[in-house]
């Protein structure tokens, strides 16, 4: 596709369940980011993939959060044993290289009930 695609666009889950959020970056982009945007808050960095380098996981809030990027393309963010405080919009972005413009997807709105 022409842009960054995220799925699902909305997800409602029960507390304690696991969820998987998917990101399809722009083809050929080597850098991929995950951010979390909570109501009234800024963008909280979660994880950053750059090419074949080890990902920067310094923003993951707990060990319930993990992410992988397969084949340098699609990425999946997994949240295990979801909690109500995990409710937020999860944004994915990709860029051609580090330091170039990041293109954002529309986000996945996660609601934990």
């Amino acid at each position, binding site marked *: 596709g022409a842009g960054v695609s995220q799925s699902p666009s909305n997800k409602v889950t029960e507390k304690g369940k696991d969820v998987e959020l998917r990101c399809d970056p722009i083809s050929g982009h080597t*850098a991929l*980011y995950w*951010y979390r945007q909570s109501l009234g*808050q*800024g*963008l909280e*960095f979660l994880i*950053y993939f*750059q090419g074949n380098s080890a990902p*920067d996981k*310094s*923003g993951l809030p707990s060990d319930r959060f993990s992410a992988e990027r397969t084949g340098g393309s699609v990425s999946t963010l997994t949240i295990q044993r979801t909690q109500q405080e995990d409710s937020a919009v999860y*944004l994915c*972005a990709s*860029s051609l*290289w*580090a*330091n170039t*413009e*990041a293109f*954002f*997807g*529309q*986000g996945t709105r996660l609601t934990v009930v």
Partner: protein
Amino acid sequence: AQSVSQHNHHVILSEAASLELGCNYSYGGTVNLFWYVQYPGQHLQLLLKYFSGDPLVKGIKGFEAEFIKSKFSFNLRKPSVQWSDTAEYFCAVTRGAAGNKLTFGGGTRVLVKP
């Protein structure tokens, strides 16, 4: 640790007023600076960026930003705002020539009253 500060959380102004949003970063080395905008119901998009060269950068929709290295600042300006500029504005930084994660400030919500 690298941090980005946006001092104004909310700004309300009337059409035709001038806008200036502050952004300061904490890293002393080479930085690359960005302003992103999120219009209501839309995804984040790039307004402008600075990598090197002329510290006064012009972006889309009449926005500009000035990099002042001595002040660790990259303030966004627009001489005359329109109602359609109502949005949330985010300053962001990457560090070093090789680049690393894109770190965002907390955002500034701008409401332009018609």
